[in-house]
């Protein structure tokens, strides 16, 4: 599995990467905002999963989600929001826009694994 990890916090990317490595996911590409993620997506397909923060500078995660879902090239890419935005309205908004699942920070390694289904 190749995973694109998108979060503006290097600390959060490090935490997630350590936890993902522990689940056997080692093919991980990182991006610090939505715009960087789009470039990484174009350069590194096939990508199976995007783990995506919501609030980021330059391009936020929701805008990236909409961009990816509007492009048929990426139809097979699973997108998991992973954000501190915990309100029900945000979860519904993301799922309606095509997110496969929604992970609220803070999370445990077990919780992350369960949501990703790996």
């Amino acid at each position: 599995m190749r995973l694109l990890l998108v979060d503006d916090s290097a600390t959060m990317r490090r935490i997630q990467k350590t936890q993902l490595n522990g689940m056997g996911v080692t093919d991980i590409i990182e991006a610090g905002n939505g715009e960087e993620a789009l470039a990484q997506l174009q350069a590194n397909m096939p990508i199976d999963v995007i783990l995506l923060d919501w609030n980021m500078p330059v391009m936020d995660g929701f805008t990236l989600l909409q961009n990816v879902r509007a492009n048929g090239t990426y139809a097979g890419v699973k997108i998991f929001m992973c954000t501190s935005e915990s309100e029900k309205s945000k979860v519904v908004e993301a799922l309606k826009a095509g997110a496969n699942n929604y992970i609220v920070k803070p999370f445990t390694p077990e919780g992350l694994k369960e949501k990703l289904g790996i």
Partner: protein
Amino acid sequence: MNVAYVNPFVGATMNMFKTMLNTELKPGTPMIKKAPLPTYDISGVIGLSGEAQGSIALSFPKIVALKIVSALIGSEIKIVGPELTDGIGELANIIAGNAKQHLTEYNLSISLPNVIIGKDHVIASPSGAPTIIVPFSCTFGEFAMEVSLKTK
């Protein structure tokens, strides 16, 4: 003034430390901040806007901040630098994001985090907004949260 709005921030802080650091926090008695007072050495600040405006700040002594972020990333950091500031900013971000699910009547948006470094710095609150200080203690040491929210 209804200071009950501080409770979601206390709960979110305790949940954050329990979930990601496996650490139980002991909250102290909340106090109303009556004048600009110096805080600790490093503060993570998140702005709140919407039907209410304000901010949440988590303020740490340097040694406590270093211990907490080291535990978060699973690797010891010894100096105040980008790793520390990013970690403290992300802590504040997660806590603010979690707390606002319990404050839906204010339709709050949260800003990207800012981190202030400097001994005895002062965090000023929006004009007229009451600021509540909540002290916390845990195995890493002591720190404080300042919540300031002005409702319309």
